[in-house]
């Protein structure tokens, strides 16, 4: 659960050094930061939106925003936390924007479910047993759909905690919620997911 966060928290000094290097004019330092953090940001976006292509666009946007603001970075928090904050805000804005909803609806009407299924097939191409793989995919699909059905605030907290494996304090810092709010939202999200998934899992 917390293995990812442990892996990341080991290198905040490395991140800071890269940021300083970038601020000193070394553009390549930013590339290193992107390569280091792209997957966890991409995963967050994908779990939040449930669409691979949209997640790709959104994750790129997160790094573009980071690039533009990085010169003003003051090292008040870890680069990873700061980047998560940008990602969370970008996701929230995406959900708010009407065109996102319209685009989603249009996709569903024209070609229901096709986009998602196609991407998921691509991701897990190298799995051996077709039957086991199908079962696993179905399972993943169900979990992802259950996550997507949560209210955005609960969804973000449970992704950050149970998927990204961040500690409560970091989640409060990233989302801007109080610690109590993080706890109660996480509790409600878990109960809600249990209710939705108990029958099928």
């Amino acid at each position, binding site marked *: *659960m917390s293995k990812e966060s442990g892996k990341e928290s080991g290198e905040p000094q490395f991140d800071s050094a890269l940021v300083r290097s970038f601020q000193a004019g070394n553009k390549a330092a930013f*590339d290193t930061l992107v390569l280091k953090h792209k997957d966890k940001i*991409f995963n967050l976006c994908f779990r939040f939106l449930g669409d691979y292509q949209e*997640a790709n666009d959104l*994750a790129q946007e997160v790094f573009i925003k980071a690039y533009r603001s990085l010169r003003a970075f003051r090292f008040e928090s870890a680069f990873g936390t700061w980047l998560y904050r940008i990602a969370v805000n970008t996701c929230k804005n995406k959900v708010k924007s009407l065109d996102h909803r319209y685009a989603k609806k249009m996709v569903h009407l024209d070609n229901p479910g096709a986009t998602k299924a196609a991407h998921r097939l691509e991701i897990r191409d190298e799995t051996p047993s077709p039957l086991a793989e199908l079962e696993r995919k179905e399972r993943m699909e169900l*979990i992802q759909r259950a996550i997507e059905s949560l209210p955005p605030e609960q969804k973000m907290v449970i992704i950050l905690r149970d998927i990204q494996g961040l500690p409560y304090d970091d989640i409060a810092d990233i989302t801007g919620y109080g610690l109590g709010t993080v706890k109660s939202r996480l*509790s409600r999200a878990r109960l809600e*997911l249990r209710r939705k998934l108990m029958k099928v*899992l």
Partner: protein
Amino acid sequence: MECSQIKELLSEYMDGMLDKETAELVEKHLETCEDCREELASLRAISEELSSLESVEAPADFLNKVNERIEQRSLVSRVFRSIFAPTWPKIPFQLATAAAMAVLVFSLFNVMQSENQIIGVPFQSEKARTDKPPATDSLEPAPVEPTYQGQPTLQKAVMPEKPAERKPIELVLLLQRETPSRVYSPGEGAEAEDAKTGTGALEKEEPFAAQKPLGKRTKQAARKAESGTGWSDEKRQHPLAPNEKFAGSSDEEAGKSPLSLQALSKLHRLIELEGGGVIAEGDEGVSPSQYLTAEIPAKNYRSFLDKAGRLGVLQSSPSAIPLGDREMILVRIRLIPAP
């Protein structure tokens, strides 16, 4: 603790986020409650299910795409800035709106004001020219005459305003028969005469009468005046008569209206006493009335009115109260002899 309360704490208990005491309470409850144990187990299963979800990785060209978009954006913004930045200072929308409104209101106000000037001023100057004896020191705006058809030209608008300013305050002094005896009998003997004519108020005239050095002569003159003759003699002899020429001219009219002549000379003295000066005087032809134009210091204007009021019935419009900022007040007094 009830199950519902415990169930709310299970999520935190699972993550080790509860304080020691609460965690012990939950543990105690879990030992006895099968239902809550199941709940906790299912929550753990969900959490583990989520954390075991495979991390969806970004495509291989992710970094390139990001850099491409950064390049594009910086190029676009550079072009955009180079085109618009110099002529596009950042003004807050509200500020810009407020400024626009201020300009609009100010310009409207200006237009309205200049209209007023064009329409308003000609009326005033026309009135000043046509009405030879203006009613009062007109402080109220000139009435808009519907017959006025003149073009509101600027030439008219900039007509000199001085005549309007120098418009005298019109006063009418209706003389009374008793007046001469009241004023011209300050001596001891006069008192008897006062008693005879039934008029008192001698004391009130003291400051005025004290200026006259020849009490006996005035007494004499008063008697003559009462009989209707000898006024001109008195007038010539009077040391304070301000204008010999006037005295001469009034000689011929002495028979016609001695009272008004007498009053005229009194007015002359009164005006001088108050620090003013007579500018013009004369009669208006057929009518027996006479007029006198004089300047009186504004500060003495009230006392002048008071004293002039003792010569007869003084009529002045209430709007004739002088403006405080003027030094000298121009008055035009019309004397109307008692019938």
